[in-house]
């Protein structure tokens, strides 16, 4: 940890500068209101400073308003590195590689399901494997698993879990093509092979939501979002495979840094130069986990579709489920951004941050290109979600990135303590939200008070102009791991 006390300079109501001091190679830039900044605590700011020490970092180390303490990089951290002089760091991606969200719209309204809601939640809970160490129905051979790692969501579609149209509405088309399964350890393969098609535990969830407010009617129309519409939000990642890949490469890169004499302020920031064999190996392994996560969310979507049709006794046509978009919020990508008047390829790390590309960008799917990329922001359990849209300002200022969610304010233990003697399940039900969870303590640990206010977080990115509000969704049913 860096010793200097972080002194912040206010730029405007939503931007704070961390001045460049000591060994920092660039300054820091934090998006936050005064209130959110206070909630983030000093540890997050110190981590922004630590990230600014890394070789080859370009422009500034960024943090989003949902910033909170993480391993190495803060959660909500964004940093871009020059391909020739910069580094890639597993700590800048996180343990849950390609943790992300997928929002599916339906042709149903709340009135269509209101009477059946509790049965729907029970059925989804039964049909979607969730919880600690949950395993799916599929036990892949290592050979087949490697195909998943190579092909991502495309593998799932080839197996009948969805359509080619789903791939178009997935970030990167649901596959990173530089994935190399030979760079993944046996341990990681072993941890992943039983977990494809499972939600996981902790903050991962599947929610039934209703569109409650539209902020931008023309973008909402382009996205196909209407008030009163039922939608399903899935929040999951690459499961044990991703955790193991992160863990394996942290250990490898600590050795590697000792060998080449590179020192960083925190071991969790272990890194390698992007163009070194070690850096390339990590990227190729990380891409495998990213692909696994995309295949996983594609399968979860398929299971959800089947479960809803069965439970409601309707045809897929009546359900009318289609994928709005799938985004990752824990990833490193090679993308091009304007730097000093030129557009350069950079290695952008987003750890608890979401891509927010502007209208006209070639990586935005055709059907949305005139308005910009859909950005999905899940709240904490039962709060609902936002759909935002990417902006030019994000492209120019924040490496095409925005916030990813609400962000923790209470530790799991603090939340458990604070919820003593209360029934979180009952409290949620009183607010009209039906919840089922696999883990006994999950509801306490994940209770709404444990998180920052989602509306306040989204207001900051909206006012700062790094994404724009399109719609807000309210939760009516939730299954947790």
């Amino acid at each position, binding site marked *: 940890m860096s010793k200097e006390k972080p002194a912040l300079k206010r730029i405007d109501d939503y931007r704070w500068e961390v001045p460049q001091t000591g060994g920092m190679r660039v300054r820091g830039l934090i998006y936050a209101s005064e209130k959110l900044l206070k909630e983030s605590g000093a540890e997050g700011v110190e981590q922004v400073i630590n990230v600014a020490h890394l070789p080859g970092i370009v422009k500034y180390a960024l943090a989003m308003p949902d910033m909170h303490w993480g391993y190495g990089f803060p959660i909500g951290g964004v940093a871009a590195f020059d391909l020739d002089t910069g580094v890639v760091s597993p700590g800048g991606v996180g343990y849950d590689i390609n943790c992300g969200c997928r929002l599916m719209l339906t042709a149903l309204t709340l009135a269509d399901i209101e009477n059946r809601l509790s049965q729907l939640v029970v059925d989804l809970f039964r049909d979607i494997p969730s919880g600690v160490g949950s395993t799916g129905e599929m036990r892949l051979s290592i050979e087949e698993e490697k195909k998943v790692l190579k092909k991502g969501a495309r593998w799932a579609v080839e197996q009948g879990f969805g359509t080619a149209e789903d791939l178009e509405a997935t970030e990167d088309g649901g596959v990173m093509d530089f994935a190399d399964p030979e760079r993944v350890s046996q341990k990681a393969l072993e941890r992943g092979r039983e977990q494809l098609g499972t939600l996981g535990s902790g903050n991962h969830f599947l929610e039934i939501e209703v569109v409650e407010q539209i902020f931008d009617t023309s973008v909402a129309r382009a996205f196909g979002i209407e008030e009163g519409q039922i939608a399903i939000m899935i929040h999951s990642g690459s499961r044990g495979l991703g955790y*193991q890949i992160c863990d394996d490469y942290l250990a490898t890169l600590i050795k590697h840094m000792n060998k080449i004499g590179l020192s960083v302020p925190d071991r*969790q920031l272990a890194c390698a130069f992007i163009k070194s064999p070690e850096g390339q190996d990590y990227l190729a392994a990380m891409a495998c986990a990213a692909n696994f996560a995309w295949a996983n969310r594609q399968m979860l979507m398929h299971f959800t579709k089947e479960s809803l049709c069965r439970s409601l006794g309707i045809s897929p046509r009546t359900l009318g489920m289609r994928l709005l978009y799938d985004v990752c919020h824990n990833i490193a990508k090679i993308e091009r951004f304007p730097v000093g008047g030129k557009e350069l390829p950079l290695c952008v790390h987003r750890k608890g941050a979401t891509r927010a590309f502007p209208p006209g960008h070639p990586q935005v799917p055709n059907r949305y290109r005139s308005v910009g990329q859909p950005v999905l922001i899940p709240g904490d359990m039962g709060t609902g979600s936002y759909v935002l849209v990417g902006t030019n300002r994000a492209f120019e200022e924040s490496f095409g990135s925005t916030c990813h969610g609400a962000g*923790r304010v209470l*530790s799991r233990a603090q939340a458990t303590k604070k919820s003593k003697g209360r029934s979180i399940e009952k409290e949620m039900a009183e607010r009209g939200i039906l919840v089922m969870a696999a883990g006994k303590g999950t509801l306490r640990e994940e209770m709404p008070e444990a998180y920052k206010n989602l509306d306040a977080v989204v207001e900051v990115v909206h006012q700062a102009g790094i994404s724009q509000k399109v719609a807000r969704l309210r939760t009516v049913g939730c299954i947790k791991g």
Partner: protein
Amino acid sequence: MKRKYRFINHIADVGIKVYGSSCNELFRNGALALYDLLVDISTVLPKEEHKITVQGEDLTDLWVNFLREALSLFHIEKVVCCNCYVAVINTGYGEAIMYGETLDLNRHRLKQEIKAVTYHQAYVKKTSTYWVGQVIFDV
């Protein structure tokens, strides 16, 4: 040593602070603390032996890598453990035997998921009378 270990709270995660009258005992107690977080350890029988060997850049790196290997038994071999014998601990190398059995969800109650062992605030040190170590888990 009265106390072998205690659990510590961290912002998003959980950690352990571990004590031992020797470095070997510290490592043993660390492995026990890890499994005590994962599973109701009183329901686990020492039916199988699993040998683990680890390397490290320094003692703290070895400590983290040792706990990583111990956790791997659960994630990869689906084994839960209730005891540990530490045979060798040097700065750069360690050897231990973990005792336990194959996970059986009908008998073993899992307490919580541990995704990984992290380097954050990890340390091992010797005071004048005993050894102490700490580690934070990503859960």
